[in-house]
């Protein structure tokens, strides 16, 4: 009789633990993977060749991304630096922000598009404002600065934001609204930034 009683709470606890560990796993994966990717990136910076962050990976880091808030001309960083992976597939996005391959490459002329998860890597995006700075480091160690010019919310079918541009544009995409919990969202938060003169470093 006693054991009967305890079936329900222990089942509930078990399910709870499994949910919790699933959720935590995603978060941990997202955070931990960045360390491995960072190692791969430092190798890439040395020889400019793609390096897989782990041996069975289907991707490699292509850039390092930093966000800077422009607080009365004094720049301070928002969030941690992130390492951008090649190919915005569901799997890559779990490990880090990813470069959409149909757009321009990092540092190339055109529209460079980077997508990231709103609940992990791109969570800091909700803090950025027009006039803030995005810094992108290419595999040659070049720092490129982009000034945020637009922030739009679009429906997921509005793929205009992926269109090629003639100038150097950086488009960061994440799901919207940020506080939403589910894995599906119809809206995207699109941060558009234009390249600014990178002759002198802003930071």
């Amino acid at each position, binding site marked *: *009789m006693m054991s009967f009683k*305890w079936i*329900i*709470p222990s089942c*509930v*606890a078990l*399910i*709870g*633990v499994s*949910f919790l*560990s*699933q*959720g*935590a796993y*995603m978060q941990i994966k*997202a955070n931990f993977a960045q360390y491995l990717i960072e190692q791969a990136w430092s190798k890439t910076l040395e020889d400019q060749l*793609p390096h897989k962050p782990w041996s*069975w*990976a*289907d*991707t490699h880091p292509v850039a390092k991304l930093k966000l800077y808030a422009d607080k009365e001309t004094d720049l301070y960083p928002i969030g941690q630096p992130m390492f951008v992976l*090649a*190919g915005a*597939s*569901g*799997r*890559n996005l*779990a490990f880090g922000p*990813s470069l*959409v*391959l149909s757009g321009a490459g990092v540092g*190339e002329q*055109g529209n460079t598009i980077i*997508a990231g*998860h709103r609940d992990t890597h791109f969570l800091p995006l909700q803090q950025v404002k027009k006039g803030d700075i995005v810094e992108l480091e290419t595999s040659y160690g070049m720092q490129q600065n982009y000034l945020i010019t*637009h922030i*739009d*919310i*679009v*429906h*997921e*079918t*509005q*793929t205009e934001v*992926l269109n090629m541009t*003639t100038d150097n544009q950086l488009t960061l*995409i*994440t799901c919207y*609204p*940020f*506080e*939403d*919990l*589910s*894995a*599906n*969202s*119809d*809206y*995207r938060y699109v941060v558009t930034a234009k390249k600014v003169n990178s002759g002198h470093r802003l930071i």
Partner: protein
Amino acid sequence: MKRLTRYRNRKIPIIRNATNKLDLAAYGCSGLILLALMLLNVLFPVHAMGSSDRRNTGSEHKGNDLSEVTQGILRYQVNGQQFESLPLKTDVRMKVSGWTNRVSVKQTFTNQSSDWINGSYIFPLSSNSAVDQMRLIIGERVIEGDIQPKKQAKATFEKAKSQGKRASLVSQQRANIFTTEVANLGPKETLTVEISYQEKLRYRDGEFSLRFPMTINPRYKPGSSAVDGETVNHKPLNGVTVTSELSQQSYESLSPTLPSSLLSFSPEFLLYPAADDRSEIDYELDDKNSDGVTVNLLVELEAGFNVADINSPYQEIKKVGAGDKWQISLVGQQKANKDFVLTWRAQANESLSPLTAVFTQQGQTHEVVNQQSKEHSNKKSNEKSNKHIDNKAKLNQVEYGLVMLTPPAASNQSQFVQRDPNTNDDISKHHLPRELILVIDTSGSMSGGSLEQAKQAMLYALAGLTSQDKFNVIEFNHAMSQLSEQSLVGSSSNIGKANQFVRQLEANGGTEISKALSVSLTHAGNQAGNHEDEFNRAQEHSTLLRQVIFITDGAVSNEHGLFQQIEAELGDSRLFTVGIGSAPNSYFMERAAMFGRGTYTYIGKTSEVKSKISQLLAKIEKPVSTDIKLTYQDGTVPDYWPAQIPDLYQDEPLLVSYKSPSYNQQDLIVSGYSQGQYWQHQINRNAPKQAAGLDLIWANAQIDAIEATQSRSNLQRVKKQVEALGMKYHLVTSQTSLVAVDKTPVNPMAEFNRNQQVKRHMPDGWKRPQGVLPQTATSSRLNILIGLSLLIIALLHGLWLKGLLPAQRLILPKNNEQGGSYDVI
């Protein structure tokens, strides 16, 4: 009973002995719960606030809209800013002659407010339309639009706008999406912008068809999104039955679902979805009042042969006429919610000779207009003016033509010389045996939904095989494996094996596309060549079409190397790429298909798998002619577009535009290979039919071809070429726009104009081929939340069972008074 007593016995001593400890544990537990709740609050604080914000704006909306909605106009207020949808009436007139269709679209903007406004309107046109004319009509006056390079045209328009002059601008957004903008539309005033374009008709299976996109289907479902809990009923397609009250309601519930708090960023952009939905309401309101459709359509059909079977699958039409001249209009009371499609064919007794093979035109359509605008634009670039002067001399001697290329079996026309009648019968009657190679990408990037879609596509393609066919299945990630070494016969047991093979595929590892490509493209030819003699190999080639269906998301980095590889290894194979997933690398896929002389199909959703794959299979299982060439009798090549003529499939003749000096009156020769047999037709140009606007079609085809070769490296050159062609032929292209400006300023306070967005048509092709933006959220936080809540519930339950909940603890001592040693404060 025994147990229970034991339990009691055991429990009481515990309580008695360890009162202090238990106290500690209970408080610890409640502390833990509090901590967890706090954690939850910290994790998800904004959600509740956000939604209440939205609710507020929602109620504001309701108040405003109910009082201010008037007929034909819809106001909506966002963050104190007023937006209105601008009513627009569209008049379409089509004139069909021969194989071309001249369409004029009149867009009438009406300003029903008491302010000056600037309007803009995004609309679709069919994808091969060459827009060459725009006129701004103000009352009685007509101002002809000038062609200008895109940026210059925009500047001209903006200048006129700020000077308070009426102006209009037509520019291209994408291949089939255009924008009309009007400036300084006065209170209660009406402006009409007339746009004209030329297009080729479609011809397939003996049937001509034309299409005018005017879809206004509800595509957005903001109500079902996570932004707001409110659900919005889908407005029924047949809006006639919907009362305007209902549609107002759904409008109101729609607007708050837009993330309105964010409109301050970029209102135009955000309002599109709403504008789209609103358009329907406008139509409904108009319907109620004016007893007609907002799109009026009139087609004058001069087919050049006796017409039968005039049909419009989506709309009810009225036909007047006889023989080869007909007038077709839409029956009133119809809602323009589907694309207008008109099909017709030749009467049965004429079926053998209705098709003239060639239409021609002398000189350009827009010579005169060009010369005027040339003075204007040539100041900018000397290089261009030289070109123009050269052309001016030749202009009148140039002949533009449109020629129909028909594969052998469909070419029963008397004027064709058939060199190879034997093959014709074979091709038309039999299902061609073929070798179908299905290649599937199982790299890590395909994991999840993509692989499922790809598998379904494969299974569907496998199901369509017959025992005459041969097939093989290849999967690749960083390694590659195939169903069998040699292609298998399409027997049911083999297909069963293949199904098994496909089902057990899993996505993992990297993407090494090159090896899979080379195996799928060259495998049969090479291996057969090694083992069998040349004759057998030739036999194999002539009887088996080798078609490779390549399913991938195209996440590759060495694109150019792969293109070269495809070009080098293609041989007689044809490569059809199928893009899967939310954001496949279409650049790679389209070009891979181009180099592989096949087509690119994009599948965005699982529900589309069946229809898209069956379309592709139906097309490629028809007999095909390859290596199509168009030459003069003496072997020289005319200037024709598309320059790389694609394979000709049965019952799908191709229309090719050419340009030729008019002194060259040689006949044209079309040649190609069908099942290894050479064939050619001679096309007589002595008695061509005259048609208008062929130069526009020629230029448009050339622009399409040039833009298709666009890559990151030649972007600038392509743009220059497109701009030059657009300027020369007076065409709206990605680099040129038409602009018309009235001379006299009418609005002294132009800077205070409001900007308005006209409800927008969404073309069919807008959404599907482009897919959706990548999914950028996980359920990690939801899972953590659920997990934590469940744990707390379990904990509370456990405590309750133990009788350790704070409330229970207060009561417990009374029950256990005989236990005695409990002291409660």
